[in-house]
């Protein structure tokens, strides 16, 4: 037996008293789960503690709570001393018990056809990955789109795709799914990350439903414009100024002995909207011994099309990009756009490794920059943190140049075609992001995604900068202090 202390959320709306966190210390056995600690508190210290559970083995979805802020099934999560246990972010009925019923009732039912149409094994295999849902509503509790729109939520959308795939179902799900907010999802993947069954709702349900909607001509006009642009120019944004690719050579040699060689996949946004940022990145790579090959034939990665369900041209883009790097025998392709990186890693089958620039820089190490006298906060891009699992590397770089103050990792609202397709929603989520930034009192906002940087800049008074831009400022400051002339050219040979 060992002693464990939990801080547990207590609240009874009937009492009129405010909620409070109460510390409890109990003895439990080795390997005890969060649920067993709650049992011990209830049985030995306070029988008025309310919490919900049933199967105790991760199969019924009754006991989801927030453990240290993150949704988890109490029956499966190992208990650790000092944990804070809160209810899911849903209406609280009492203590850890939340009201699940309104959202459970919104999950659609299969309406059987009069005569049974037997599914095939292929149908069954397609539906199965969407069928494991235990309706714990962890996904619903973290979905940002649901906070600012009428989006019905991740698991209800999962069910819509499950029904759309089933030949036994009589009703047409696509118009219903659109009505329920199919285009409101930012594909931030918060739902997937908290799902105890790891159901890939954004990729396997939302994007697939959008693709079915596309086949029926329901794609949003603004998204169709982007698809036309990609088809005609290979790029998802129009050219308005000299692009990054026009300004650099095919190879940028580093200063000193090269530590590594990477191919650079720049992406439409850094190439055409924020070329200055990409040029800053090249400066930082040069200074840190990374040799960069920049094939000019590269095109849009296809992310804006995949996220919005417009798949017909995607294979062409994939082949062009893969061939471009394979032809140069490049074994590591570096991205600096979170969206491109996530797409290359998750939607492509590449014959080369794909690394985000923060992975490259932390893997090979960077020359320490001068510390800048500012405080920064960092916005985790969804497609970097959740799409690629990269959370620590950007912070490791940032902490070398400025003081970092953290804020909650929430979606800024720019992804999934939402900024172009549903600007009101994007603005509402951006405003929430802006409010969190304000709370930090930081001087500058740092991120690592062109969509986030561009979008957040419209919702905060603080300057929004890419990590590499801040690192470069640190190097310039270092050089200034040392009396070194700044080097101007970034052009390769």
């Amino acid at each position, binding site marked *: 037996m060992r002693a464990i202390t939990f801080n547990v959320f207590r609240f009874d709306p009937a009492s009129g008293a405010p909620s409070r966190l109460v510390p409890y210390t109990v003895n439990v056995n080795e390997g005890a789960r969060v649920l067993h600690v709650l049992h011990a508190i209830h049985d030995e210290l306070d029988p008025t503690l309310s919490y919900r559970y049933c199967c105790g083995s991760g199969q019924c979805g009754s006991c989801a709570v927030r453990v240290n802020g993150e949704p988890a099934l109490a029956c499966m999560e190992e208990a650790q001393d000092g944990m804070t246990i809160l209810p899911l972010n849903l209406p609280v009925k009492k203590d850890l018990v939340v009201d*699940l019923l309104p959202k459970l009732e919104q999950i659609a039912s299969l309406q059987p056809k009069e005569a049974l149409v037997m599914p095939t094994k292929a149908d069954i295999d397609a539906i*199965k990955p969407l069928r494991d849902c235990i309706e714990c509503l962890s996904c619903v509790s973290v979905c940002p789109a649901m906070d600012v729109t009428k989006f019905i939520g991740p698991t209800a959308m999962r069910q819509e795709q499950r029904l759309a795939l089933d030949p036994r179902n009589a009703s047409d799900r696509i118009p219903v799914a659109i009505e329920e907010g199919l285009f409101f999802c930012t594909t931030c993947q918060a739902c997937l990350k908290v799902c105890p069954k790891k159901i890939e709702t954004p990729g396997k349900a939302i994007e697939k439903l959008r693709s079915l909607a596309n086949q029926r001509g329901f794609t949003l006009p603004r998204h169709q414009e982007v698809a036309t642009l990609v088809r005609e120019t290979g790029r998802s944004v129009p050219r308005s100024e000299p692009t990054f690719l026009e300004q650099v050579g095919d190879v940028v040699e580093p200063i000193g002995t090269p530590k590594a060689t990477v191919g650079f996949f720049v992406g439409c946004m850094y190439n055409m909207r924020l070329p200055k940022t990409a040029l800053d990145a090249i400066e930082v790579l040069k200074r840190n011994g990374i040799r960069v090959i920049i094939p000019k034939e590269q095109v849009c990665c296809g992310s804006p099309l995949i996220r919005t369900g417009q798949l017909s041209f995607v294979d062409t883009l994939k082949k062009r990009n893969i061939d471009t790097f394979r032809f140069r025998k490049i074994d590591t392709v570096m991205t600096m756009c979170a969206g491109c990186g996530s797409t290359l890693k998750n939607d492509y089958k590449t014959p080369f490794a794909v690394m985000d620039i923060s992975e490259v820089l932390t893997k090979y190490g960077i020359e320490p920059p001068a510390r800048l006298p500012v405080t920064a906060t960092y916005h985790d891009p969804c497609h970097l943190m959740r799409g690629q699992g990269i959370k620590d590397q950007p912070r490791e770089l940032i902490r070398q140049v400025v003081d970092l103050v953290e804020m909650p990792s929430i979606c800024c609202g720019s992804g999934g075609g939402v900024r172009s397709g549903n600007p009101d929603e994007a603005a509402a989520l951006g405003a929430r992001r802006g409010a969190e930034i304000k709370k930090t009192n930081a001087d500058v906002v740092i991120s690592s995604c062109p969509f986030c940087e561009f979008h957040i800049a419209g919702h905060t008074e603080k300057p929004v900068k890419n990590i590499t831009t801040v690192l470069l400022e640190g190097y310039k400051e270092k050089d200034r202090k040392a009396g070194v002339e700044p080097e101007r050219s970034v052009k390769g040979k």
Partner: protein
Amino acid sequence: MHAADAQDCHVLVIGSGGAGVRAAIEAAAYGETILVTKTIAGKGGCTPMAEGGYNAVLREADSCGIHFEDTMKGGAWLNDPALVQALVTEAPKRIDDLIHWGAVFDFTDTDEVAQRPFGGQRFPRTCYAGDRTGHEMMTTLMEQLDSAEVTKLQEVTVIDLLKDGDHVNGALVLDERGHLVTLTADSTILATGGGTRVYDISTNSSSGTGDGYAIGFRAGAELIDMEMVQFHPTGAVYPYDARGRLVTEAVRGEGGILKNNLGERFMTQYDPERMELSTRDVVARAIATEIAQGRGTPHGGVWLDVTHLPRAQIESRLPVMLEQFLKFGVDIREQPMEVAPTAHHIMGGLRITTECRTTLPSLFACGEVSGGVHGANRLGGNALAETQVFGKRAGEFAGNAKKRTKKVDAAQVNDHQQLLRRYLAGSESPAQVRKSLQLAMWQGVNIFRKDSELRHARTIIEQLSQASLRAQTAQNLAECCIVRNMCDTASLICRSALLRLESRGAHMRVDVQQKWDAQHSPFSHTYISRKREGIESAGGSI
């Protein structure tokens, strides 16, 4: 009581597992139906936790006759043959219903419902959805329930049945806040599931507290074969606080083997023919014997090993097992599991006809709360089938009943209000009473039984039944009522175990010498009600 604290309907279904929801879907066609459940509907009961499968005769090479014989033999010929006949005949029709409604069972490469071998069956007739078969069924049933005209009263606890003379007129329930409410109905269906939570080590969900046995008994219904408790051979032993968690028979169905700490495949000693796929009573006794004789693993179990199977087979057929064990630090693709017997299923229950009529007028029962389908030992895969076959039957026959004028017995309501007041003024922690009960049952009414230990357990249960349970607030009243049900259920099991002076199926009396095998036993069902208790002779006479 206010007028708002009373609701009337045609059919009242108590319980939201596979049987209850199936009954409610059926009953809704006949009139206003209320489904009342102490959990969120679809999340409670044992159906969503059921992993392995659903037995149904679907192939030419199989037959209902063989399924019947397998079930009777597995049940040590204690089963009610008419109930078994209904089970095997209708299981295929009811799985057709599920498939029509969208259930995603695993399919073969030739687009047929896949089946796998389970213990005690001569044909691989267990249909499955990976190892989350019950969850798949429950999800499907809930979708149909949501489309049906059924009122759901969720997280509401039934505490007793309403009676008017012999007739059951509905139920008394506690709502979430602990207020007493009456639900009146022309027909009432008990579908409350099982009760092996009365044991210290159990596979059951929190709702497996034997409520239906207890409230049925208190209302005057007769129960049969309550001593027949199935100990599932393979329950998890680690972590300690999650002990008893089900490790599905599908693990052995897929080819898993059992070994003791000497690495011996010990089933050769107990059933060399059927080995790991012998019936559950045999495998459970074998494992318990190995552990008792010092050949157990570090955490007090035996090894269950699938490491010789292809990784892809484990990943696709046993995904829940893989995920659960990974969470507890064991990769079953590379390491064996540690398992030991765990209380799993109560074969006994309310005596029913094939129309699911209990011995009380207007009270029906289906699913685990009823007795007679499985005899002295249940075959894996027959319980999920039972929920559908008898759930449908209960809904239909309860629905067919005539509308009646019902009278609520004021004295009965008053008695219950007094009971609740006593709880609010009580002194003993229901949690502590529950734990003492669970230990007494585990120690005294386990796999191997004898008269002296059963009597000792009965004494403890009687003492615990007298405890002055305390409800700290009105919201704790349901907990007191449930502990009361657990005490009553434990008592029914223990008293019935004393009545059966033979070893048969899951009931093993180590202190009784017998000259007969199960097929030639002079005994039939044990029976127990408020009026009488005893054991029937094999011919059916008492």
